[in-house]
């Protein structure tokens, strides 16, 4: 093979063909601009006066390039090899049948190149017109915690792996859930905090909440009352639960031990009878009782007097002790105690009135008449 050396004048054959049709220099892309050497009379070169540099300023060049008057010189960048080293996102190569738990086995920040889902996130003014941003380079997706490691398949695998460390749950509790209250009266709860950081400790994890059903302690009434007094607000009367929250020690174990210690102390203190407890009076009771109250005295007195009036028909007839031990009075006493020891309500007041009327033999209220 050989190479012919043709004399070229800046035109290709195709250019010439085009020129032959148009007749102009359309096909020519660039003309050869000749340089004219200007000489003066003495034959010396003409030296131009230096006013400013001949080169164009950057702004000038940019303006020319943006208006299409100047050709944009394409330069290669030195980081070409680094740019080419970037690989295709591996999510595109993933087999749809692959085991996702192997790809995302533990918690990690979102990575667009790994997750083969066309997820979008972010807010835009008109979502109807333009969808939220794609996953690529989307920081919103990186910020939020994702649960890609906690797929049902992953949880199933973890459960299977951990099964060997588990003992069967007591069948008796499955059959009868109420056994928990009677058989396991103590419950201990605490929180464990896991987070990324330089320190694995978290002060909140030391707090222990210890709950016990006071009924399970089998205390006598007086002992229970003493325990309630000692426990203060830690005892919930409605559920009969004593709650001890300990956080004064450094570790959870110490706090749990301290909670047991407190319960032990409470138990023994409650059962102890001190000498000064003998001087206890009615006023020292936790709750107001009907026996010994002025209300009882007055009621018994009133009922005794009423029963002597023939025109009246009280529910209880008799005198003194007979009246006090009467069944209906005892029923009233229960209601009275409840009324006095709980928060007052309209229902309770109405009940009080109803029972009092019944006791005194007063007629019940007729149905409310409609006013004109």
């Amino acid at each position: 093979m050989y190479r012919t050396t043709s004399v070229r004048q800046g035109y290709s054959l195709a250019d010439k063909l085009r020129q032959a049709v148009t007749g102009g220099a359309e096909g020519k892309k660039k003309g050869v601009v000749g340089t004219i050497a200007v000489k003066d009379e003495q034959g010396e070169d003409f030296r131009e006066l230096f006013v400013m540099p001949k080169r164009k300023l950057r702004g000038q060049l940019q303006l020319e390039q943006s208006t299409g008057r100047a050709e944009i010189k394409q330069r290669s960048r030195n980081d070409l090899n680094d740019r080419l080293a970037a690989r295709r996102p591996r999510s595109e190569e993933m087999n749809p049948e692959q085991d996702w738990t192997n790809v995302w086995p533990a918690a990690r920040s979102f990575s667009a190149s790994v997750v083969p889902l066309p997820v979008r996130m972010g807010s835009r003014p008109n979502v109807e017109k333009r969808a939220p941003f794609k996953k690529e380079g989307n920081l919103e997706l990186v910020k939020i915690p994702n649960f890609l490691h906690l797929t049902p398949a992953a949880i199933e695998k973890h459960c299977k792996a951990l099964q060997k460390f588990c003992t069967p749950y007591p069948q008796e509790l499955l059959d009868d859930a109420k056994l928990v209250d009677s058989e396991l009266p103590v419950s201990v709860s605490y929180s464990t905090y896991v987070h990324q950081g330089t320190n694995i400790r978290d002060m909140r994890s030391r707090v222990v909440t210890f709950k016990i059903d006071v009924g399970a302690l089998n205390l006598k009434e007086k002992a229970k009352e003493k325990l309630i007094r000692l426990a203060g607000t830690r005892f919930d009367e409605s559920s009969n639960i004593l709650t001890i929250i300990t956080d004064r020690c450094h570790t959870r174990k110490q706090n749990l031990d301290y909670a047991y210690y407190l319960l032990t102390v409470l138990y023994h203190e409650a059962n102890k009878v001190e000498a000064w407890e003998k001087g206890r009076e009615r006023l020292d009771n936790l709750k107001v009782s009907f026996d010994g109250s002025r209300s009882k005295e007055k009621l018994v007195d009133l009922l005794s007097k009423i029963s002597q009036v023939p025109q009246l028909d009280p529910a209880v007839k008799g005198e003194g002790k007979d009246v006090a031990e009467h069944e209906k009075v005892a029923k009233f006493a229960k209601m009275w105690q409840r009324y006095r020891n709980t928060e007052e309500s309209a229902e309770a007041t109405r009940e009080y009135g109803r029972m009092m009327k019944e006791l005194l033999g007063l007629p019940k209220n007729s149905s409310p008449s409609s006013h004109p």
Partner: protein
Amino acid sequence: MFRRGHERLFSSLRSLSLEMAKNSHKLNVKPAISKDATDVLKALSETVGVDSTAPHFSFIDDPLTIPSTANAKRTYFMAREMGKRAARELAEEWPTLFAFDRDLPRLDVFRPNKTLDPLQVDPTEANLLLMIEQREVRDAGMLYERMRTEDIPVSEEVQMKLLELVAYYNGHDIPFSEWENWPGMRNFGDDKHGNRESWQNGSVADMIFETLPRNAHSTSIMIAALCKYPSKANLERARNFFKDLEKSKETPKREAFDALISVSSIKEAKMLLELMFAKKVKPTAATWNSLLISASKVEKHSDRTEAFMKILGEMQQCGMQPTLSAFQIICSGFIDRSLSSSFEESDRDTSKNKANNDVYKNQLKLAISWVSEIVGHLEKRYEQNQAIEVFSSNCHLFFVEAIGIAYRASNIDVARRIVSLYESKLNKVKMPSFITEAQFYNRYLQLFVEKCDNINEIETIYRSFVPRHVSVSRTLTKLIIEKLKKQQSWPLLRRLIEDGISSRQMTDFSVSSEFRQLLLRIEYHTLSVSEREEFSSLVQRMVSIWLEFSRFTEDHPVSKRLQAKLSPQLISDCALLLSRIGEVEKAYELLELILNEDAREGDEATVTSQGFARHEAIAELFEDALRQKDASRAATCLEIMSLNSNRSKLEPLAKRIHERCSLTEAQSRLINGFVRLRPQ
């Protein structure tokens, strides 16, 4: 007293509450299963399998930071490690900066202490011991010498420890290969200055040895150390020490026997072994390995094989299980080194030395049968649920040797068994990732590609191995190209080319030319719609890459080094590919570069003046132009063809332009004139 009393009380109450549930007839609570602190983590980790698309765990899982080539892997890994080392250095130099850090647990590795300066530190025995424990060999030697000059007594025990350290490392610092915490340096570190040099006479080791009373321990240390640097003088000295011990009726230590056996001939080694039995020194796996090393030095192949067999038989008699390093010594000794180096790859078939070739083949046959036996033996261990444990730092080399033999013997079945042996959970011997493991998988992949006829299977395994295990290399790419020449597969070709782009193969003349040829072979119309899009974008990307490489025209050393000028052949191929995907305008813009003198000459040249456009490509473009009745494009093709064709070849082409295109008289005259001016 009060406190203790209450403690007893509450503990009794606590036990009472627990006992209540335990002893309750209504509930049956089983006792908890005992477990270690890490058992749960281990159980969870066993649920995680292999992610075949992921990079090695030490790299950031991002398209930009997943390396494709071995060199990039090394660079990325070392960059990461050097960053870590710089941070540790900072913490070491400026510990007060980190004094108030509240990290817990406080790990010593993040609180490095500055190593002791032997010239500044107090010359005490405690400091010397600390240096010995930290394996600061040179510093320990310097401190010892300082203590000697200052007449500070050093106990015999410490001197013995120092002798062990200094003699083993020949007075040098530990080599990179023994750096525990820095895997990058351990695997990639250049150990030229290391202690593989000759033994330093009159060094600290000799000085301590002379100071200490001669006994079996110190003499054994010296024997072992001298055998580590097996020059003739050193070996003679070691043997003299051994004789001295024999004369004084002292029993040398096992290490001395091991070292001497490994440097002796098989006959001497046997005698030493007998002496060991006589002196009731119990041989260990290291002793047997030394014996195998000795056997591997036997010149004659048959004698060598026989020696291996005898040693293995003896081991069996002694109830000793061979370690992987023992198998590695055997595997590496099967084929004569002179033969294995001369029969690599291409030389194997073209070798003129037929006799040698036959010998090599026979040795290879024997070697593969032995490897098969060894693999079978290890598989039986797995069946008995016995794990393969690490014995020495050479254990992992067994897998490389074995796969090397399987590769040379082209035995894919054995290779598969070796891979499954390596990947088993019972195997505790792991190869360094980017060096031997990459070599291991590369050999397996190449063998698989060679032996497999199904292109889809090749694609699957290629995708799962590259770049995770195996780096993109020229040899591998060429191997796949050969396969693709026989069977077409667009997904594999696309992946191969993309791998080539990311591993700098676009500027490799041969490989990039092959890529273009393979792309030209693809029948565009047979591709699906999505595949056509992929094809188009890939072609455009490739063309833009080649153009960008050609535009490094600045007068700067970096630019000049990076520039890869376009060749006429490349331009013609690219133009054809562009025209096939419908980018005809771009195709002709490219073609005009061949005709543009400014692009070929001068400092700003982007096209090389060597070579010619590929005739088939231009012919096809010419036909396309004629089909479209485009005289201008046909003329461009004609002009390019005229660069290496004479008038007789151009005239029929010009005639066809006349026939197919409606030319004006002037145009017709121009074409005729152009052809007439070409040489005959």
